[in-house]
């Protein structure tokens, strides 16, 4: 036990004195998460800004209906600008100066009075995304105006105006989990925690055994009477500590992101971050074997590699095993897989999904148990492989 502790203490000391390791464990996770948040906020704010879009209208409104449409547009935070002709409007679109040009045409009022429908022309560039957004905005506005016109017609004919929409849908929110957390956080937190739990240890892993081979310190270490198992366990604990610190840094950045007045945050984080005591416990129980799995995997790769360069190559490949399920975990809530049993049997994805559910206050006991047991089994297997590799002569002779 003393030897394990001695190796652990030495590795931690070594890690803390290395700028690269400090950066991977603390600076990297903190700033990347914080910047991601800031970026999300800025994008959110600019999307909102895009909603206050400018729409060009050909000529002046000529009748009540035209005016009603223009007024509805202005109410909907749409800036209305006039353009003399359709051709002038087309030119503005080609020059990138207009997103959408609306042509009322003639006879709108007369057609309606005669009980006929009319068509407005909306000119836009189909390759321009902002034009698509403007189009959907204008269609919503026209829809509202249509509803108003219909209501008037129904009232005029002594009919109930609710018949404008004979069937409507009432949204009734059912509280499923014990907490409510902002959707963006539910998607982001599991992904960030998993990614940083791995990357936090990755930069250290290439140094922890293969680095010792390269710097020729490993032989001296192996000549000491301490068993290789103890050396392995000491190094494993140091790696697990690095993974945990990186996870914690990401989490602190996340909390800082929710607390600071960054642009667009208010809208983005509607619902905030609420985790119950049970949720926190579940997250911890799921995270521990996940971190143990990552640390064992990283140790095995480092013990196998001839030098740091080879270790970095293998680790870059191994990172895909973590990144792909972690990325999928971001969208799993949009699919049926979020509650499917098979997800519990997919390493990394199961952890991310269990974290996601814990944030929502939903607890699938069987799924959580499978995730924890599978994590323990896989980390034990990776550790056994690392110890075996460490016990082989090749750990010294394969250089």
């Amino acid at each position, binding site marked *: 036990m*003393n*030897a394990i502790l001695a190796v652990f203490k*030495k590795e931690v*000391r070594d890690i803390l004195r290395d700028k690269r390791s400090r950066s991977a464990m603390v600076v990297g996770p903190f700033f990347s998460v914080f910047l991601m948040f800031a970026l999300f906020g800025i994008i959110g704010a600019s999307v909102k800004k895009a909603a206050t879009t400018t729409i060009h209208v050909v000529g002046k409104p000529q009748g009540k209906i035209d005016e009603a449409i223009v007024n509805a547009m202005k109410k909907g935070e749409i800036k209305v600008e006039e353009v003399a002709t359709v051709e002038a409007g087309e030119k503005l679109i080609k020059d990138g100066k207009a997103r959408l040009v609306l042509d009322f045409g003639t006879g709108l009022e007369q057609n309606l009075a005669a009980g006929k429908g009319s068509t407005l022309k909306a000119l836009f560039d189909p390759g321009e995304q902002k034009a698509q957004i403007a189009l959907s905005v204008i269609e919503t506005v026209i829809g509202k105006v249509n509803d108003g016109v219909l209501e008037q017609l129904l009232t005029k004919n002594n009919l109930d105006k609710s018949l404008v929409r004979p069937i409507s849908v009432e949204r009734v929110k059912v509280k499923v989990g014990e907490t409510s957390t902002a959707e963006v956080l539910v998607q982001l937190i599991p992904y960030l925690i998993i990614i940083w739990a791995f990357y936090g240890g990755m930069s250290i892993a290439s140094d922890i055994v293969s680095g010792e081979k390269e710097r020729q*310190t490993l032989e001296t270490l192996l000549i*000491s*009477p301490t068993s290789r198992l103890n050396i392995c366990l000491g190094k494993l604990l140091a790696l697990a500590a690095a993974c945990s610190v990186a996870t914690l840094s990401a989490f602190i950045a996340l909390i800082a992101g929710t607390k600071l007045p960054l642009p667009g945050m208010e809208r983005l984080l509607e619902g905030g971050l609420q985790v119950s005591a049970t949720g926190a416990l579940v997250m911890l129980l799921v995270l521990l074997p996940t971190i143990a799995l990552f640390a064992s995997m990283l140790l095995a790769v480092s013990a196998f590699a001839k030098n740091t360069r080879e270790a970095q190559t293998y680790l870059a490949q191994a990172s895909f095993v973590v990144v792909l399920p972690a990325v999928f975990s971001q969208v799993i809530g949009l699919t049926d897989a979020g509650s499917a049993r098979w997800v519990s049997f997919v390493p990394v994805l199961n952890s991310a999904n269990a974290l996601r559910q814990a944030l929502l206050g939903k607890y699938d006991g069987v799924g959580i148990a499978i995730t924890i047991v599978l994590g323990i089994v896989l980390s034990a297997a990776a550790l056994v492989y690392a110890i075996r590799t460490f016990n082989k002569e090749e750990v*010294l*002779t394969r250089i």
Partner: protein
Amino acid sequence: MIETHGLSKEFVDGKRGKVAAVQSVTLSATPGRILGLLGRNGAGKSTFLRMLSTVIKPTAGSAKVNGFDIVTQSEQVRASIGFMSTSTALYGRLTPVEVLEYFGALYGIPQPELKNRVEYVMKRFGIESYADGLCDKLSTGQKQRVNIARTILHDPPVLFFDEPTSGLDVVMSQDVMEFVEEVKTQGKTVVYCTHIMSEVERLCDEVAVIHDGIVCDFGMVSALKERHQSNSLEQAFLKIVGYQRGVSLK
């Protein structure tokens, strides 16, 4: 005390198949004497020492170090030896004190004793003045002194030196050799591995000449010279390994 009987080591190489690095070596080294292992680069000297220090296992034969079997009692063997070579590096981000304390803990030296031992070796090798600087910042000579201190920290009865002066300047080499002479007078068993003839002549009581993994000759330096009718150890060595002018050895 070291005794080996038919100690052999084969490596399996993907391209060359089985490679015999050490073949049936039977040797002994006694306390208070220095056994020299003389051979060219790649002769099998380091493999022999690695087997004795239990980091690799022999494919045949047996050996005892300080009375412990190198295969079945490897932990006791490792606790009995000190290993030093120039290629052995220190941890660059640790200070000399931390390196010594680390290895002291790995050797299971209890805390109050460890403190005394660290203080003793630091004083003995003049490390105190740079004891708190990072090893990365030390000069080659200072690093070598820390390495020597680490080697004898646990006061082992058996010491292995694998080309300990390789790459060192004359003064530093002198320092190392004086240290080897000192441990001999302390009654420790020393195996000194080198390809530098002058070091062997100065330090070693017996010499084993290793070539292609085989001990080609063994005896005192004077006996080797006499046996091969040579004026110097270098001449005797060249005759032992079958060197002919203008013909490369394999």
